[in-house]
């Protein structure tokens, strides 16, 4: 594996649970992964599989109650974040590690000016005069290509369009030049044309700043276009990890395979009208009542007795391509 010193983030056996009215469940179960400097790691999986909770766990922002991180370690540039006290963690948050959230409208404070929100992010971590921080804020807004940044800085979130808000979020997240940026579905709420702009922007800035990037999405198209490595999650667990090329070339987990097959391809040409799509039958299980064995088994065409009884371990199927399936070998053939 990669050289240790090159790692920005190293997550080991992360476990986060939720205590809710309907019961306790593991939203993130035994998750390990790492991100290198300048690398983009994508986390994919369908809605509710634990992607956002993973991101929040890294930031130690899991809402408590009902959530709690109950195990594992998250080391950022060598320090275990989970071992820090709250004050130390605050010094790291927004400084070395920052995050862009899914909903640009609701993630900005509606009663504060955009500029002030960025200024706050800067001044929390750098002891500089307000005036200077303001200049930085305007500069950041210019960096994320907001026209007339000085004027926009004085506006409130509701006065900006969706795309601009998301850019403001990015400016805020990058204001302190973090070592690691987590982007949790940064474009889901946006139009595809805007999405393309925003993603291009994030990648540009990432390159410029050398930041490690964790990109969370469930859009495999986005993954293919942006990431170097990919983690696939299902029901709180990592079921597959590989480089983006390897994953798309030969997925080893039946779930990944099914997911890829059900994506409607954009027909550059010659798609027959009314083509049926491949589908994964059944539905995602409730996290509260997971089956004993493999969580995907009830929906899996390849499921065998063993799948129902025993959870398959993550195994390396060559070249760092990890997958948790008893029949990973056969996946490519069957589908």
């Amino acid at each position, binding site marked *: 594996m990669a050289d240790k010193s090159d790692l920005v983030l190293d997550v080991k056996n992360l476990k986060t649970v939720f205590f809710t009215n309907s019961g306790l469940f593991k939203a993130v179960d035994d998750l390990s992964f790492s991100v290198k400097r300048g690398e983009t790691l994508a986390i994919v999986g369908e809605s509710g599989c634990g992607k956002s909770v993973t991101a929040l766990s890294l930031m130690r922002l899991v809402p408590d109650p009902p959530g709690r991180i109950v195990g594992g370690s998250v080391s950022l540039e060598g320090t275990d974040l989970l071992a820090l006290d709250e004050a130390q963690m605050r010094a790291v948050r927004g400084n070395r590690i920052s995050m862009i959230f899914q909903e640009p409208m609701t993630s900005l404070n509606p009663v504060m000016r955009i500029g002030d929100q960025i200024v706050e992010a800067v001044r929390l971590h750098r002891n500089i005069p307000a005036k200077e921080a303001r200049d930085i804020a305007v500069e950041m807004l210019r960096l994320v290509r907001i026209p007339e940044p000085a004027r926009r800085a004085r506006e409130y979130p509701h006065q900006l369009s969706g795309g601009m808000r998301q850019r403001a979020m990015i400016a805020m997240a990058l204001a302190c030049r973090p070592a690691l940026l987590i982007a949790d579905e940064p474009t889901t709420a946006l139009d595809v044309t805007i999405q393309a*702009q925003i993603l291009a922007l994030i990648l540009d800035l990432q390159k410029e700043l050398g930041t490690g990037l964790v990109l969370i999405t469930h859009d495999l198209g986005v993954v293919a*276009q942006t990431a170097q490595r990919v983690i696939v999650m299902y029901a709180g667990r990592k079921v597959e990890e590989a480089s983006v090329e390897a994953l798309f070339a030969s997925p080893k987990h039946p779930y990944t395979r099914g997911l890829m097959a059900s994506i409607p391809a954009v027909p550059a040409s010659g798609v027959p009208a*009314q083509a049926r799509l491949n589908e994964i039958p059944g539905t995602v299980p409730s996290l509260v009542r997971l089956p004993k064995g493999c969580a995907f088994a009830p929906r899996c065409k390849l499921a065998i007795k063993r799948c129902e009884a025993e959870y398959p371990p993550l195994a390396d199927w060559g070249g760092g391509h990890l997958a948790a399936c008893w029949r990973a070998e056969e996946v490519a053939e069957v589908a």
Partner: protein
Amino acid sequence: MTAALLEVTDLKKHYPVRAGVLRRQVGTVHAVDGVSFALGIGETLGLVGESGCGKSTVARSVLRLVEPTSGQIRLDGEDITHLSKTALRPHRRSMQIVFQDPFASLNPRMTAGDIVGEPLAVHGLASGKELETRVARLFEQVGLRPDQMRNFPHQFSGGQRQRICIARALALEPRLIVCDEPVSALDVSIQAQVINLLIDLQRQHGFSYLFIAHDLAVVAHISHRVAVMYLGRIVEIADKDELFRNPRHPYTQALLASVPIANPLAKKLAPLVDGDVPSPVNPPSGCAFHTRCRFAMERCKTERPALVEANDGHRVACLLNEGTGRPNAIP
């Protein structure tokens, strides 16, 4: 394509914009600003465009759930634009709608069976035992178990909820089903299930679909023809193959180019347009797209292009190269 089931001519819907506690009108949203199209029997027309461009408003207007500001809607040749509520009721049976958010469109306090049976009860088509058997049959049709009739919406998964919505739409045996982003809220794996169901049902019953989405790929799979909307207007409409093979409007081109392709080896993202979508409250003068268009000319700022036939069945609203909408060369 045979005779048109639905014909929409120059449909406009303007909403007043109200502000403040008194909700005074401070402007007008040109949500739909002159839309015309026709939909044949057994045909699927896809309607794409970004969020807020007026797709849902078209859908609602067609069903007369909102009163159009102007224009005409013909169903089976009959003008239903100005029918009274009572006169409209029989026509309600011929057209139904499936919404984007399946959970929100189901009353959380009614059982699935009641929800699906409600249209039948309202129109007095069935009651008691008969109602129950018909609902059960509808459940089977959409791939739900009849024993789930007594469950409440929150007890279903997203895909199942959308099936309930579809079953409710089917209950009156309509000829036209308007699908307003029926899969946007669903996961890809579930999305495929629902699309397949819609395709199967169309094959069995010969419905016409007005299928709205913002995901071009989804639309590509289900539609016969596709219309692209931008800020309340249709900017391009063509047979699906033609549209994808040969997009003429710069916006359509940008849309197609922006869809990330699920193949790491394919070309990388390259945004074709810049800037943000203008607000429909004060749409730009001339061609609404000129603020973001790569090919924008002086004319585009003042002159509003009409939707003209570029070649067989392919119509586009662009001034580029005298209305053919075709750029000289795609860079």
